[in-house]
């Protein structure tokens, strides 16, 4: 299956929970540490996300995603550790580069926030089928057109990439050099991009026609082949998480007033 979706069906309860509940989880994971303003809230939520990902049998799949952002995180650590405006106390030195306690501490705060956000999003995207999520939204009155655009991207982009590679092969077989120095690549880009754009436009028009003749723009009330993705616990999750967010806000206000 060629799709850019990261979803994997492991058959766990996390796959069966309503996407809305998981979206509430993402909102809670981002807002609660921000509202509370304490680092431990972020750490707790990272632990919760890790536990959920482990339960959903997708923790391993989170690692490459964290590794991708690892470069950014490392850059933050280096820049803040060395150059943060409040740096005073040297912590350690790597050759001529001196890292300061205050900067590293500040960078750790940023790192915790980023990892928390990434992992909570992983809970959503690794355990939720995109089409289920959109179908649930459309059931709630969301525009089917927007839903279609969102979903089709996951499947159509890999197909377009395949078309691009076919066109590249065709041009290469006619003697065009597509690899080598930057100048060679730029020279190859123009004869490649014109057929890619043209074929994409033609395909888009044909697909629009095909959708049209299958009633895509129908004003009738849509029905669904699949049942709505939800469990008995979703109602409680969707009440508990907003309550937790409100509680965090109240806690912060009381701290501020005290």
């Amino acid at each position, binding site marked *: 299956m060629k799709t850019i979706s990261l979803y994997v069906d492991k058959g766990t309860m996390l796959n069966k929970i309503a996407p809305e509940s998981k979206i509430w989880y993402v909102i809670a994971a981002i807002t609660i540490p921000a509202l509370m303003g304490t680092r431990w809230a972020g750490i707790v939520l990272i632990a919760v996300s890790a536990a959920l990902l482990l339960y959903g049998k997708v923790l391993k799949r989170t690692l490459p995603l964290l590794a991708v952002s690892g470069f950014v995180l490392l850059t933050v650590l280096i820049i803040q550790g060395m150059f943060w405006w409040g740096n005073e106390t040297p912590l350690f030195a790597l050759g001529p580069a001196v890292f300061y306690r205050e900067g590293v501490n500040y960078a750790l705060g940023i790192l915790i926030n980023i990892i928390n956000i990434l992992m909570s999003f992983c809970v959503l995207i690794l355990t939720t089928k995109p089409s289920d999520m959109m179908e649930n939204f459309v059931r709630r009155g969301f525009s089917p057109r927007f839903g279609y655009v969102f979903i089709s991207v996951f499947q159509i982009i890999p197909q377009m990439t395949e078309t691009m590679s076919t066109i590249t092969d065709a041009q290469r077989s006619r003697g065009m050099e597509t690899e080598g120095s930057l100048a060679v690549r730029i020279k190859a880009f123009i004869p490649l991009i014109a057929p890619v754009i043209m074929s994409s436009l033609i*395909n888009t028009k*044909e697909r629009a*026609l*095909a959708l*049209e*003749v299958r009633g895509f723009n129908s004003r*009738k009330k849509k029905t669904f*082949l699949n049942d709505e993705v939800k469990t008995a616990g979703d109602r409680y999750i969707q009440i508990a998480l907003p309550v937790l967010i409100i509680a965090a806000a109240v806690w912060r206000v009381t701290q501020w007033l005290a």
Partner: protein
Amino acid sequence: MASLNIEHLKYKYPGTDRLALNDISLSIETGEFIGIIGRNESGKSSLCQAIAGLIPNFYKGAYGGKVLIDDIEVKKVPVDELCETVGTVFQNPFNQVTGAKATVYEEIAFGLENMGVPKEEMIRRIDRAMELLDISKYRDRYPFDLSGGQMQRMAIAGVIAMHPQVIILDEPTSQLDPQGREEVFQAVQKLCGQGITIILVEHNMEKIAQYSNRVALLDAGTLIDFDTPQKIFSRVDLEQYGVEAPVYTQIGKRLNLTIEDTGCYPVTLEEAKTVLLRKGGNDPVWL
């Protein structure tokens, strides 16, 4: 089921001077299988799009005349409503996959969901369509993983599940390999006799001759002739319109073998055999 009447249909694409459809009038009976032939740019696809309501509702331009399905004037009905009456299968199977569904089964349901068909009815219709098109075994496959022929059969299943009265197949095999082509023609064969009016645009004249009750010959947007395959393919000026007669007709023309009743040349293997048997009795030289 519906009869189809086209009255003085004229159409010109925006920004062009030439009429893509020039005063076309024809009448098609319910359940007929109609072949549309002609060289490239002769107006075959434009005629199909006019019947499906895509002209003038999707493609704008200068439009005149009428397309009537029973008493419904196609121009006045939005395409998303008309698709319950007229189903269309296009050339490229890949572009007919919505890209929004994860399985063949869900893909076939797409149109039904849009039309608000209740779930139980939807399941019944999808199962029937899959059975008819012999694609039940691909039910849980990812649509983009199918071969061209399988994908095209899935597209046809998606159309027939909507229970249209007219199905238009616009060169459904032009982008398929021989095996895929055969799969689609076998599916088309199954559609014959279902009481649905079928309009097939195709460059394979043997297939047109095999399935069609009548054939419309188009050239430069004009309807040259609309008659039985035997009469159309027996025309002496056929090549002038960029159409090559089926091989059996060509043999008939070379050997001057005609069907006794009509005086036309044979267009199918069966007809050729009959004519040859009549001509040569059981003489093995002829057989």
